[in-house]
């Protein structure tokens, strides 16, 4: 269907460019289709116009054809109407197919400015992580948006923790497709002492556990201490 829409868009584009078709011609065409094939849906003047826009956005289809076909038409509408630059459109096309976003999620991610966030601020990785797993950079973000928790400001760490667990599905979507939930308050034994990790995930692409520590305050260097302590403990095992 995407191919058909693209081809119609191409046809309309050429008609408009060379034969001087105008908006009214497209409206007449839509009316004609509606009259001839009343059961046929999706060929309103507005949608025909969108097909033309679709073709003009991706004139060189060969490069993106598999990506284009994987998304439903309504997801394309969100991407087309709200992202202007070609790089931005391609970014959302790739992310939406890779992450298997729902149409609603496509709209949300565009609203959240994921593209801008990814370009302006890459994630902050430790030197050790860069050396051990250089590809980790593409699986994390610098800023995670948790607006779906509807948390008041300020909130406690327990509130944050609890609502993340209650909205685990959406949190997983925000983290990325490859994250799998392992546990909460995950026990770690060091020496004779028991500690608990806030949240534990597994990343399929990186094939490693990801321990998440939550802080409802701004970053302080000592926060890293505790996390490093757990990580060292695991590596030593």
């Amino acid at each position: 269907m995407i191919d058909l829409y693209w081809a119609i868009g191409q046809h309309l584009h050429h008609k408009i460019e060379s034969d001087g078709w105008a908006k009214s011609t497209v409206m007449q065409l839509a009316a004609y289709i509606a009259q001839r094939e009343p059961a046929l849906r999706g060929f309103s003047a507005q949608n025909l116009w969108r097909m033309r826009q679709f073709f003009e956005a991706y004139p060189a289809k060969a490069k993106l054809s598999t990506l284009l076909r994987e998304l439903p038409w309504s997801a394309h509408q969100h991407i087309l109407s709200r992202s202007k630059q070609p790089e931005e459109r391609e970014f959302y096309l790739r992310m939406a197919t890779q992450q298997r976003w729902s149409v609603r999620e496509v709209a949300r991610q565009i609203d959240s400015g994921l593209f801008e966030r990814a370009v302006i601020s890459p994630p902050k990785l430790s030197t050790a992580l860069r050396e051990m797993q250089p590809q980790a950079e593409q699986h994390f973000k610098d800023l995670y948006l948790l607006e779906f928790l509807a948390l008041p400001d300020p909130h406690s760490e327990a509130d944050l923790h609890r609502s993340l667990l209650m909205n685990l599905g959406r949190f997983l979507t925000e983290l990325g497709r490859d994250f799998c939930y392992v546990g909460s308050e995950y026990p770690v034994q060091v020496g004779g002492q028991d500690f608990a990790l806030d949240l534990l995930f597994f990343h399929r692409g990186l094939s490693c556990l990801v321990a998440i520590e939550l802080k409802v305050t701004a970053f302080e260097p000592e926060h890293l201490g505790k996390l490093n302590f757990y990580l060292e403990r695991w590596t030593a095992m």
Partner: protein
Amino acid sequence: MKKLHENPAIGLLLCAGKDSKVVEYALSRSLSPALVAEYQTRLPDKQMLAMKLQEFYLLSAPEVAPKARPKKTINRI
């Protein structure tokens, strides 16, 4: 804890805010595979992000960017 075929675990510190300089400094000295990220409970202003992106492009590709016009003075109210 870690299975034999798995890579070493990664730690993610998710905080309500951060000073990039402090984070950079702390992470450059960390010997553990860790990263620091921020969370927000509100969607950001897309227009503001788009402006930042524009600035970023101008900074990173000055040769492609149009010649900078003399800066207009902005009257602060």
